[in-house]
């Protein structure tokens, strides 16, 4: 356990050298160097993520068409040089909509995962540090939230908040809610092992307040599981967004979303225009695949103890 707090202190001889190597940019570079060398699958995941980020950032530059403009001269065209992945029933270019869809997926996925994991972190740390009634209360609430299958609670939240054009915030909220208890549980158990460490007691003895102890001294030490879950839930959140949109309970037209593309065109025109059903699914799978691979490897690299979690 002490290793977690002070990885540098092992032998007195080269303690100083090790300490220097264990912090700052050099440690960062060394970590990623090793990551790339020893975890080819994780690196492949990272490459997929980087491609997706670049696609989203440069969507205006690389997309050949306007993602929302109708073109009634080119309805349901098959893949060709003009339209690499064909066109949909409104004549919109599928390739362009896939590119812009990465923005929706990342926006929803990242926001939901970030907010969900952060709230989970707060609940987990507060519960573990304060203990007693407050901890009991938080835990019971999290247990109840965990009693709902993921998609069911997401649908319930969407139903309550309402769906519709421009209500993307509601979709994000619906995906955030089921993430919170799952993160809170893991963070709480990590934080519990830190709460009783001597350095926490020392900090208290110096006169630090509860808030400072929780967020300056405990939270940074549960950062590894937090980061791992953030990546893992990003993939889950993207999948959930696609699922909700596919069901007609997520993002609405004209916003380009991969799940929505499968709903709108994929189903009705399956026989007539099969390309509509293939490309968006590949995009969803690659995105989730990338985050899963990267998350798994990150977990192995950062915290082997979490392997079974």
């Amino acid at each position, binding site marked *: 356990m002490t290793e977690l707090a002070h990885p540098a202190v092992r032998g007195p001889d080269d303690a100083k050298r090790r300490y220097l190597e264990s912090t700052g940019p050099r440690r960062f570079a060394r970590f990623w160097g090793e990551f790339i060398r020893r975890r080819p699958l994780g690196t492949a995941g990272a490459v997929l993520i980087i491609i997706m980020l670049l696609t989203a950032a440069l969507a205006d530059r690389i997309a050949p068409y306007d993602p929302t403009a109708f073109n009634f001269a080119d309805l349901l065209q098959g893949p060709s040089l003009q339209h690499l992945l064909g066109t949909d029933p409104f004549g919109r270019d599928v390739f362009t909509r896939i590119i812009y869809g990465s923005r929706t997926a990342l926006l929803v996925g990242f926001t939901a995962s970030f907010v969900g994991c952060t709230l989970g972190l707060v609940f987990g740390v507060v519960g573990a540090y304060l203990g007693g009634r407050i901890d009991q209360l938080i835990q*019971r*609430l999290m*247990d*109840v*939230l965990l*009693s*709902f*299958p*993921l*998609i*069911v*609670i997401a*649908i*319930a*939240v*969407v*139903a*309550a*908040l*309402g*769906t519709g054009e421009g209500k993307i915030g509601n979709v994000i909220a619906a995906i955030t809610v089921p993430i919170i208890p799952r993160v809170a549980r893991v963070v709480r158990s990590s934080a519990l092992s830190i709460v009783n460490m001597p350095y926490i007691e020392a900090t208290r003895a110096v006169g630090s307040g509860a808030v400072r102890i929780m967020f300056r001294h405990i939270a940074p030490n549960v950062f590894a599981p937090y980061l791992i879950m953030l990546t893992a839930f990003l*993939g889950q959140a993207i*999948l959930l967004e*696609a*699922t909700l949109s*596919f*069901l*007609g*309970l997520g993002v609405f037209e004209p916003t380009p979303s991969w*799940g929505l593309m*499968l709903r709108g065109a*994929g*189903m009705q025109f*399956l*026989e007539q225009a*099969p390309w509509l*059903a*293939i490309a*968006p*699914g590949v995009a*969803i*799978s*690659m995105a*989730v*695949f990338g985050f*899963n*691979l990267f998350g798994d490897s990150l977990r192995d690299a950062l915290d082997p103890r979490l392997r079974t979690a």
Partner: protein
Amino acid sequence: MRRYVAGRLLLMIPTLIGVAILTFVIMRAVPGDIVALKYAGSPVPQSIIDDERHQLGLDKPMWEQFTDWMGEIARFDLGTSLWTGHSVVEEIEVRFPLSLELAIIATLLAVLIAIPLGVVAAVKQDTWVDYAIRLFSIGGLAMPSFWIGLLMVLATITFFGWAPPLVFTAITEDPIANLSQMILPALSVGYRYSAVSMRMTRSTVLEVLREDYVRTARAKGVSESVVVMRHALRNALLPVITVVSLEFAFLIGGLVVTEQVFNLNGIGKLLVDAVAHRDYTLIQALVLLLAAVFVIINFVVDMVYVVLDPRIRYS
């Protein structure tokens, strides 16, 4: 043992009450209320709105609404659907067998896929067979089950000229027609469902294969297949069973989307339709039902665990 079961059973009660409270709270988080939402944008006189509110009991204080609702649940009366006007219990009753059948077939398929592949991957660890199987399972986690379903429909249309029929045939009417209709949806749910259990099977079999008693078995000249089947697999099955049952949430998620793809009129489709129609009494009932089923399944899994593993003696 008996005390443990009784204790767990008692613990389920506050959880279920918590689930009911949360469902109730979420449904009341609707901006405005359900009647206002139902008539939003249409010119309905205030008196009709007030009448309907009174009928649904929405003009009573919150706590009274909740106790009324709990009383109704205790009498198995889940109210009337706002959309169809039929009783919610009836709506669910009609569709429940289909979803249950789909769930059972999908689980069977998942186990049939996961366990053999997991064992083979473990036995052939770090060969191309292992990599191929692991890739197959990672794919199952990344691909949305509705997309797998779409691709299956697409493949059967293109290669066999067969599309899923629009009318559902019950298993009691014509088992063959029913199974031919259920196999693809069950497969698309089951594949995804199998992914986690496959990984679990692989890692537990790997662990067990390193145990002393497996080495002993090998040393005394037992053939490799007997070692794997009798000594390793048997002892590796327990955690796998847990995972299979815990992944039940996957299953429900799978049902919700797959029923949509294959146009099966089950509980999942009912939930999605209910949200689309803003049928709040129905949504409330279904969310509660699914969560309750989930809680009960988790309880049953724990009990199965105790029965299967004599080493576990809960106190």
